[in-house]
């Protein structure tokens, strides 16, 4: 009898606990749901001090891939927007010291001509020269393209193409990837009778920032990153008195924005 009483009391205690827990949960759910209904969409603050800024207005829809709630989104076309510790700052990766246009020519490497002569020494006038510029060492957000395994597969594909298709091929990487070297090599190929056709492949990052009016492809400048575009290349072509590149037959630019950069004026 005594045992039955103890067992009964225990069951009663357990039941009471169950009821209180479920009520507690229900209360918490209600609180959270209530809180969620009060959450507003993140407000967008525009870095209005920048006179060049345009394109975004308050209330622009924005999707945030973040698990936590975001209360504030600051947008700036420059890389200077300060992060005051609330929400998200969307700004540009284009750094202040990057150069573009006619300032983005970079240096001519001392041995560029030597590299060219070494590569074409065994070809005749029907030969194909493959030129590949691989700017895989330029760091964006502390990471370079080369550190990514997927880029190395693409680099392999380009190297295989150079080896199989080119009677001669030149692969330039790192500091050799300057606009100056590129145009100079195209000019050397144009002048050399042994070269029949030139195929050009460039692998890098593409830039298109309409607000800052910076567009082109990333290469090496003199001591910094250069955003090389048509202006840069045309300036160099003028310098080298290039009228036409008759031997250039194929240009492959497998990276961001090159199509859009051109298409925007069509």
């Amino acid at each position, binding site marked *: 009898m005594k045992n039955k009483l103890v067992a009964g009391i225990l069951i009663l205690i357990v039941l009471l606990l169950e009821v209180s827990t479920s009520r507690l949960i229900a209360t918490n759910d209600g609180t959270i749901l209530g809180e969620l209904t009060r959450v507003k969409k993140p407000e967008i603050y525009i870095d209005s001090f920048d006179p060049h800024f345009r394109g975004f207005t308050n209330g622009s829809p924005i999707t945030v891939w973040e698990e936590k709630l975001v209360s504030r989104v600051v947008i700036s076309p420059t890389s200077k927007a300060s992060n005051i510790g609330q929400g998200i700052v969307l700004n540009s990766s284009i750094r202040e010291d990057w150069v573009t246009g006619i300032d983005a020519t970079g240096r001519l490497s001392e041995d560029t001509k030597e590299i060219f002569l070494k590569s074409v020494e065994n070809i005749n006038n029907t030969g194909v020269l493959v030129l590949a510029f691989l700017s895989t060492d330029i760091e964006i957000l502390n990471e370079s393209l080369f550190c990514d395994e997927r880029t190395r597969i693409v680099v392999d594909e380009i190297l295989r193409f150079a080896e199989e298709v080119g009677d001669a091929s030149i692969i330039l990487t790192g500091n050799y990837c300057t606009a100056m070297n590129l145009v100079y090599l195209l000019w050397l190929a144009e002048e050399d009778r042994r070269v029949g056709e030139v195929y050009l492949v460039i692998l890098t990052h593409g830039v298109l*920032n309409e607000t800052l009016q910076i567009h082109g492809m990333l290469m090496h400048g003199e001591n910094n990153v250069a955003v090389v575009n048509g202006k840069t290349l045309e300036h160099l072509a003028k310098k080298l008195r290039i009228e*036409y590149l008759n031997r250039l037959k194929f240009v492959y630019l497998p990276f961001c924005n090159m199509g859009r950069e051109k298409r925007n004026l069509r």
Partner: protein
Amino acid sequence: MFICHFVTWVGKKEIYGNSSVVAFFEKFSDAQILTYEGETYLNGDYIASVQSVLSAGTYELIEEHVYLPVEIIDNFTGEIVEGYIEFRVVDKIEETNSTINPYEIYDGNDNVTLGLRSRFKRRVVSRRAYKVTLHRKNVKVVIHRGDPPKSYVKRRVKHVSYEVVSKRETFGARGSKISFKHKYESRGIPVVAGRFWKPPKNERKCFGDGVTGKIEASVVEVRKVILLVDEIFDTIYKYYYDIKSAVYRWIDETFNAPWNKWIRSPVKTTLDNTVFRGANFVISFAKRYLKTIVSVAYSMVKAGKALSGLVAALIIAAIAKCARGILKYFSWTMDKLLGVLSKVLGVDLS
């Protein structure tokens, strides 16, 4: 909290055309120009599309049959029979129409762009089917009875066209697509200059003799070792073609007599299929033995030696591991082969 970076404001204004990279090539040449529209994500689709473009063109496929007379001893009767060995080296082009990309291993949620967009975890779903071209060579060795027929070579041409990718745009020369001629016999060895990867600046710091100083110093050492891995990969890319060229040159010079010239093609094909499948293959091979390689590289760097020797040693090790099976047909003992290669490449394997 994170900071995300963007560059592509999709504007309606037309401001760049004449000063775009494409416009320069359009103005100064009649080249066919291929570009990608908008953001380009480094995913399986992208890699497949690059592969599709660069592997397109005309292939000369060679089928080589070499017959060598031999005497075969019948194990049961002890009788000596006249026979011959047939070496068959056949080029093969396989095209696969894949609805899923062939590099799905690299097509996770983490898409990296080749613009400056941040590394958002954005899902880009593959919708296109790409034609992927794989070039292989097969070596087969068969023993026959009887008199050997005359050795012969058969050649045929195969054309592979590339798939048009929805995001890709063509500018410049209109008309028929350019057709690349892929060659295997007289390949040009690419001249490689520069660094694929730039090591961060070496900062010399004095940490002091205290416990904290020692811990900080060891953290710097560990960081150096981690960076050494990228340095090794960079060196592999830099010296891959030099070493490949040295090995193939050695094969050409060694098998130069009229009676052993035939051996070049099967040996090179074997190496093409096993070891020289691209610099990234050597990197994958290196990754399997990364601990050892990093430790050797660390000692080499400390001793002031260039890492090119390590790459040569790696390739020799890859030959020993991957090409052992088929090379024994040529009566090469692996030790002898490795000894000679070590000498050719100037590596002390001890």
